[in-house]
């Protein structure tokens, strides 16, 4: 039905359906919930101002205050003090509610800031509250939320007013069927501008109200969205963990990845040794032992058998050497010592798929960066050879603009997905340990281009 629409028709259809969409509904709910939450601060401020105002009014214009005034002022000061002490904690609670709302209704997941210090004793508790940075940011959010809550109420007005206006033609006939000649007061019509009410006095006029309502309802989702977008930005900036806390969390995460990665590499080396060179050498020792036994008695020595055993031992030794060499190169390719470009040249030459290599590295990156870049290239080349059925692979390493950009592309079948355990997730993890990033463009049917951005210095 909707698949043969012209772009303009499709746009019109989307615009008409927007007000009844799930997103518009959720954003409206967010605004509705935001109004009472935002007004929380107003309650506190009004209460304190009210008490202060009462004190000023009750006290005589000149001379000393009455005892009632003194008590009220003391209460007010107490209230201010209490508000300040409790501010961060209450704001954190409200912030948590906002975060949950944003997650549920807007799909914006803001991680919670680190919890406040508990503090020791009552004074410590107060001090911890006063020194709670994320808590004060939550307070700041509540302060900014106050005007925002009015804007959210305004957005709700577009919905409510528009919907009410839509109803005019339907009830007009029910209540306005007076005999001709009777003059009735005109009926007010909601407009997007509070305080400026239009008025309708005739039945045809109600269609004007209907048109206005329709316009308001169609526009309401966008008004709401604008306000919600502003709220969302504030929410992310003020209710999430601060920049430093986020950085700490990122570092903790990538450090854990680095540790896991190192452990996994050691495990792999151990496994390769155990299943490879070690078992070869044990077999070699066995063959030599048998050969020695065969030769032990010079009189009865079976030379042909001894030769066969020595041949087997010789074969074992060569295989063990080959396996050890591969393993050593896997731990650290010797060519890397002379530079990433040399190592990549060797890598390209030994690749199963023809490789077109271009290196432009005016300065050498740090060794750790070179190593990571090399392993990315090796893994990506191996992937291209194994999974992509590519006929040609390009490898580019560019270190000219302060970062090392490694790009490995192939003309294969594409469809590389880090979530399906192709080693790409492991690469992304390793790259993230030095604040690098890995991007994959691999549509089904190809081509695949993986780019790795790494800092030159660790």
């Amino acid at each position, binding site marked *: 039905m909707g698949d043969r629409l012209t772009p303009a028709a499709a746009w019109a259809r989307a615009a008409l359906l927007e007000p009844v969409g799930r997103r518009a509904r959720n954003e409206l709910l967010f605004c509705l919930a935001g109004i009472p939450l935002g007004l929380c601060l107003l309650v506190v401020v009004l209460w304190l101002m009210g008490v202060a105002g009462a004190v000023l009014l009750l006290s005589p214009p000149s001379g000393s205050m009455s005892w009632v005034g003194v008590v009220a002022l003391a209460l007010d000061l107490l209230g201010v003090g209490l508000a300040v002490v409790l501010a961060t904690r209450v704001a954190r609670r409200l912030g948590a509610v906002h975060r949950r709302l944003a997650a549920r209704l807007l799909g914006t997941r803001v991680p919670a800031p680190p919890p406040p210090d508990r503090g020791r004793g009552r004074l410590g508790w107060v001090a911890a509250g006063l020194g709670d940075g994320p808590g004060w940011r939550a307070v700041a959010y509540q302060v900014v939320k106050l005007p925002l809550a009015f804007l959210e109420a305004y957005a709700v007005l577009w919905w409510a007013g528009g919907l009410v206006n839509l109803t005019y033609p339907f009830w007009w006939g029910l209540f306005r069927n007076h005999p001709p000649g009777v003059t009735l007061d005109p009926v007010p019509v909601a407009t997007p501008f509070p305080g400026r009410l239009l008025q309708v006095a005739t039945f045809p006029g109600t269609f004007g109200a209907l048109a206005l309502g329709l316009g308001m309802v169609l526009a309401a989702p966008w008004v709401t969205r604008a306000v919600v977008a502003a709220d969302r930005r504030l929410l992310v900036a003020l209710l999430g963990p601060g920049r430093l806390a986020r950085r700490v969390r990122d570092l903790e995460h990538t450090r854990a990845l680095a540790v896991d990665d190192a452990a996994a590499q050691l495990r792999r080396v151990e496994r390769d040794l*155990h*299943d490879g060179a070690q*078992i070869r050498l044990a077999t070699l020792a066995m063959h030599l*032992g*048998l050969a020695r036994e065969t030769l032990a008695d010079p009189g009865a020595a079976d030379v042909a058998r001894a030769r066969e055993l020595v041949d087997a031992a010789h074969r074992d030794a060569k295989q063990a050497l080959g396996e050890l060499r591969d393993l050593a190169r896997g731990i650290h390719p010797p060519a890397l010592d002379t530079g990433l470009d040399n190592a990549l040249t060797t890598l390209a030459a030994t690749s199963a798929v023809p490789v077109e290599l271009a290196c432009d590295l005016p300065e050498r990156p740090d060794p750790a960066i070179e190593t990571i870049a090399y392993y990315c290239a090796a893994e990506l080349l191996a992937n291209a050879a194994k999974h992509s059925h590519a006929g040609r692979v390009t490898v580019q390493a560019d270190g000219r603009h302060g970062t090392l950009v490694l790009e490995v592309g192939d003309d294969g079948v594409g469809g590389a997905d880090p979530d399906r355990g192709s080693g790409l997730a492991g690469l992304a993890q390793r790259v993230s340990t030095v604040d690098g990033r890995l991007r994959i463009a691999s549509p089904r049917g190809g081509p695949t281009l993986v780019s790795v951005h790494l800092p030159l210095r660790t």
Partner: protein
Amino acid sequence: MRVVIAEDAAVFREGLVRLLEDRGHEVCAAVGDGEELLAAAAAHRPDVAVVDIRMPPTHTDEGLRAALQLRRDHPGTGVLVFSQYIETRYAARLLQGNAAGVGYLLKDRVADVAEFADALARVAAGGTALDPEVVGQLLGAGRHARGLAALTPREAEVLALMAEGRSNAGIAAALVISAGVVEKHVASIFGKLGLPPAEGDNRRVLAVLRYLES
């Protein structure tokens, strides 16, 4: 002697089969994992099984678990665990309760073909064969044990060889001393450890291990 081999590295497994067949033993089955080992043991009732510890599917300790299972199911079958590593824990689990018909050797030991064959025969006959590394680790782990400190270095050496499962003659040959001197050391060790002298290699090992476990 009828032998079953469980070893996942084909090249080593084939070498073992050949070695044993050359010596006139019958290799009933040579398999690549623990489950096949248990099936082969049930089918062939061998005198002894040679078992690698790390085998598929997880490459951790399935060989050891299969060996323990084998000992429970067929107490008459000797089990020689044959691995590239010696893990004290594994040795302790293997020897728990009963050291009869148990061996734990490093794969390196196969280089001395005659010694390996002797050890296998000992295990098949219900004796014990422990790698010097196993003994060293168990002794190290049990160093705090009361009485060990009283041993002279020579006596400690004799105890270690004893724990490997060697006879007095074997110990004498290994240390290049006379059998009489060995007997004297053994008696002295038993005295210092408070153990009554007993006949048979296996009981000596048992006594030593029991003492070490305490």
